[in-house]
């Protein structure tokens, strides 16, 4: 088994490279992705190796990036669109919701919307406004899309390839604050299916769930809790739409308590969905109501105070305390 250590950024780069080698129809398109290699260097070197026709430096307009990717999909290409930052996906919202999500249906299955929208998301990098948002919720609400997020280099490497190969449009959310963290990547075998949630750490008192950059925070919280004698089971949600409720429910049936954690504001969020659905699935096993820890219901704050906005170990453990305090 060939495993090697690399950053998530490099793993994405390698995953893209492998997808492009395997399938000549795979294109990359986005702002500054060519010569510059993208502002995060995720596409570094790819234009040099695959040419300007396959790694396309786009004029600056997101609706057009996604809209032309739709046309390319109709022509049989698979375009991986890079949106430079989460907060710049909204100009493309109309194309995503009205076209990308609906064209397979509208064409009675004739069109394959084989395209991936890469979205560096969530905060934690000390950036200015619009560079730290969590728009995955909007896309999860939209029928016709699939939305996934990686939390490790290995997942990054495999999930980007699986997303490109998948015949449905995938919104691929990359936790930008983890781009430079290293991990083992198995170059031979994918860890699991693209839409599977994964237990990252076993535990028996409370299930904590999250995705993207939050997973590492959950693991830290679990470590701290363990020191205090509380055992957390950590689930990496991975697929935000569809959600893998089977894996989640299996854990909650066992623990009877859960906390869903996310950076997005709370209202009608992924956390809300998880709480609503798990409550229904595990009602008789629940010893406390499921609790959410979310970004606050305000525009993402200036980054000097973003640490107080993003769910951190303290807030997670506070919520754990609350669900542990309930008695059934």
């Amino acid at each position, binding site marked *: 088994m060939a495993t090697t250590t690399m950053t998530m950024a490099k793993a994405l780069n390698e995953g893209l490279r492998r997808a492009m080698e395997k399938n000549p129809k795979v294109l990359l398109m986005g702002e500054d992705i060519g010569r510059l290699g993208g502002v995060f260097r995720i596409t570094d070197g790819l234009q040099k190796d695959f040419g300007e026709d396959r790694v396309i430096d786009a004029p600056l307009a997101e609706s057009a990036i996604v809209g032309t990717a739709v046309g390319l999909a109709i022509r*049989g290409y698979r375009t991986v669109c890079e949106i430079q930052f989460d907060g710049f996906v909204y100009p493309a919202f109309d194309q995503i919701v009205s*076209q990308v999500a609906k064209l*397979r249906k509208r064409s009675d299955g004739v069109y394959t919307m084989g395209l991936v929208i890469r979205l560096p998301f969530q905060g934690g990098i000390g950036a200015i406004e619009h560079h730290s948002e969590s728009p995955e919720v909007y896309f999860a609400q939209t029928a016709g899309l699939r939305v996934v997020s990686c939390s490790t280099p290995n997942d990054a490497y495999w999930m980007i390839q699986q997303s490109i190969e998948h015949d449905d449009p995938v919104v691929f959310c990359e936790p930008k604050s983890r781009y430079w963290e290293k991990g083992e990547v198995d170059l031979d075998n994918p860890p699991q299916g693209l839409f599977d949630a994964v237990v990252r750490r076993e535990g028996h008192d409370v299930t904590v769930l999250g995705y993207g950059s939050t997973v590492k925070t959950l693991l830290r919280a679990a470590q701290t809790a363990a020191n205090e004698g509380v055992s957390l089971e950590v689930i990496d949600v991975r697929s935000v739409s569809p959600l893998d409720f089977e894996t989640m429910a299996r854990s909650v049936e066992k623990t009877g308590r859960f906390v869903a954690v996310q950076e997005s504001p709370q209202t009608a969020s992924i956390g809300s969905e998880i709480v609503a659905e798990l409550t229904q699935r595990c009602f008789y096993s629940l010893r406390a109501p499921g609790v959410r820890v979310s970004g606050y219901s305000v525009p993402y704050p200036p980054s000097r105070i973003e640490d107080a906005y993003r769910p951190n170990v303290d807030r997670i453990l506070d919520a754990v305390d609350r669900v542990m305090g309930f008695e059934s």
Partner: protein
Amino acid sequence: MIDEELVQLLSPEGERVAHPEYESSLGSNEVLGLYRDMVIIRRICNESTSLQRQGQLALWAPVQGQEAAQIGAGRALAPMDFSFPSYREHGVAWCRGVPPEDMLRVFRAVTTGGWDPQKYRHSVPTVVLGNQTLHAVGYAMGVQRDGAEEAVLTFFGDGASSQGDVLESFVWAASFNAPVVFFCQNNQWGISTPSSVQSKIPLYHRAPGFGFPGVRVDGNDVLAVYEVTKRALESARVGGGPTLVEAYTYRIGAHTTSDDPTRYRIDAEVEVWKHRDPIERVKALLAREFKVKTTTFDEIAQEAERLALKLREDVLAMGRPDPITMFDNVYADAHPLIDEERREMIELGVSGGPS
């Protein structure tokens, strides 16, 4: 309508008009073919309007007055070209071979598409104004990458010309020198909004500002529309890049059968345009120059009649789809939530079962 800028090859009276850059390349049979197309599509349109009045369609978007624009453009396409319509291009769909009943499925409210877009190389209807123009540019970028000698034609209205997507599609087409032709039917109205609200100057002037040519053609002159579009497509196919064709025409009917145009425009304006009827002027040419006989015209009318009758039958035969079909083709493969909801619907007994 005396307009220096307008490419015209046939006067409203059906007289040939000389133009310094364009001349008609079509012989008797081909012109007769265009005439036949226009007569048929008008008949289909009228049948659809009455089907709607009789409660058999949820809605209809009439094409009357725009037959020359649509048939001229549609017939200028080569078989391997691809076209991206909005919602009113029934004439173009006809040229591409889309069966009339397929055009009506959307309006019968039994589907959101209606035909196989790859088979006819004509995309599905696009209702959100302007979205399709970006798809056309993207498709054209695919054509470039395939090294194919094909062109792409996309349609939008004077109203849609104000949408960001249409304008971005101009930027992109120019930036990539994409083999795409933008065909704007300026029928002078976007529901109740006159085209002067979208632009105080002719719309085709926009193109040069983006770096590619724009042409305004008499949209009621099928010969001119055909030649202008054909040349633009040919140029696109051989690397000449995009062209914007503005077909200056008029929407004689209502925006859709839900619309009441008497609320916002005067009859006199409509009357003026009725006298510029796109079908009559070709008929005059055919009769005078090509000596086409009355019987030929009659045969075409009868053919249109038969098609309308068949269309009516086909539409009436379109039953309510099984609701369970709403779950089909949303995703390419298994999706747990869809599976669960499909099961729920079956349990509720509102469906005949799996489709």
